[in-house]
């Protein structure tokens, strides 16, 4: 073949169709903003129903997670996320979907080799490195508070 590896990689790169970045950003802003607004409305609702501030703040993510799990289970979430992108990924909805979708996917392989083994196959890195980052930040925080004294 007359085309070399380097030439072809350049050709493929130069001709890669671009993602519609502006559209993706607008959709992410609208969907992400809508989810956060729903969260804020839920906070107001729970407080109006008589919940303490702290309790209401716990109930909001619980509700959003429940809705996400429900939408994922009925095969609706991924259809929204196909347009919403980061708008559904960044809020807690993305994390809930990342945990529940492999759990549903691997149900046929049983509770232990299927659901149990695979449930964190997507969210695992977030949990691991999130925990690690919080430990590192905890140490930084501790050192800073010692120095500030």
């Amino acid at each position, binding site marked *: *073949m*007359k085309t070399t590896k*380097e030439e072809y990689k350049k050709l493929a790169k130069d001709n890669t169709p671009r993602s519609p970045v502006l559209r993706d950003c607008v959709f992410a802003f609208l969907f992400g903003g809508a989810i956060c607004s729903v969260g804020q409305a839920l906070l107001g609702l729970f407080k109006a129903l008589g919940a303490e501030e702290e309790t209401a703040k716990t109930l909001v993510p619980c509700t959003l997670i429940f809705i996400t799990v429900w939408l994922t289970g009925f095969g609706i979430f991924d259809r929204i996320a196909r347009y919403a992108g980061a708008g559904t990924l960044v809020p807690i909805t993305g994390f809930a*979907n990342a945990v529940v979708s492999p759990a549903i996917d691997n149900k*046929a392989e049983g509770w232990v080799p299927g659901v149990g083994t695979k449930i964190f196959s997507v969210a695992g890195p977030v949990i691991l490195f999130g925990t690690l980052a919080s430990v590192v930040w905890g140490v930084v925080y501790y050192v800073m508070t010692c120095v500030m004294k």
Partner: protein
Amino acid sequence: MSVITLKKPVRIISSASVVGRHEHAGPLGGLFDFWDADDAFGMDTWEHAEAEMQRMALTFALNKYGADDRAIDAVFAGDLMNQCTSSSYGLLPFDIPYFGLYGACSTAVEGILLASLLIDGGHFSRIASVVSSHNCTAERQYRTPIEYGSLRAQTSQWTVTGAGAVILADGGDGAKVEKLLPGRTFDLGINDPADMGAAMAPAAADTLSRYFRETGTLPRDVGKIVTGDLGFRGYEMMVELMHREGYDVTNNYTDCGMLIYNREKADVHSGGSGCGCSAVVFASHFLRELNEGRLDSMLLIGTGALMSPLTVAQGDSIPAVAHLAKVVR
């Protein structure tokens, strides 16, 4: 390896295709033999559904030919699953000697090629070739969980839910396999699993340009040039690579991955892919065109990307292979 001209043309005496709902909704929807509204084909898991599609495709092909499995000397079958289980489980009910093949999405043509050679060699009279892919089994094995929500890359393709079966024989009626050219594995350094069209185009261009050089023919000497599943992205790359080899294929070149879906409506980005893509488009559309006299000849080029999720995770680039069969009226 040179172009093989069969001593006596091998006939494709029967064919059948089974697809899912998205494929049925596409421009070729009315040509498929069977489609299932929920892609499950009455089964409890996606893997069982894909196996069931293979069983159905071969059953329909046998029924159209008016024979039972005892009339078939061997079956060549393949799919995209680990250990090709859709093929082995799906074809379990048949009393036919079984050969499992893996050529990724090139398997449909690989099966036709090997079957034609064995029939040409005289040891077999009738061989069935069956392949399948299922969007949900492929998503699970190669990508993310089915219900995981994310944006897809513009170069990504949609794995076809479909199974195609053809029966090849040393006599009878039907389109003829006339020439064959086995492909070489080829890797020009693409390592993005969401860009398989670009990864496979060099293999297809290598096989097709070798075919033209060795036979001394030009693209215009054949009715249609059809690749398996390069999609819209791979089509562009293929046209450019062929241009650099000195051949203009723009007049009569198309790709099964571009034909199977309504691009905008189905939201499939670069088009269809998977073993089932070339198999069902060939079995339903192109064989019909040949048998009903609207097409004289075609070069069918099965294109397969030969990576696994493991090699992708380890950063390896994606090798590909492309086998060619010239099928004439």
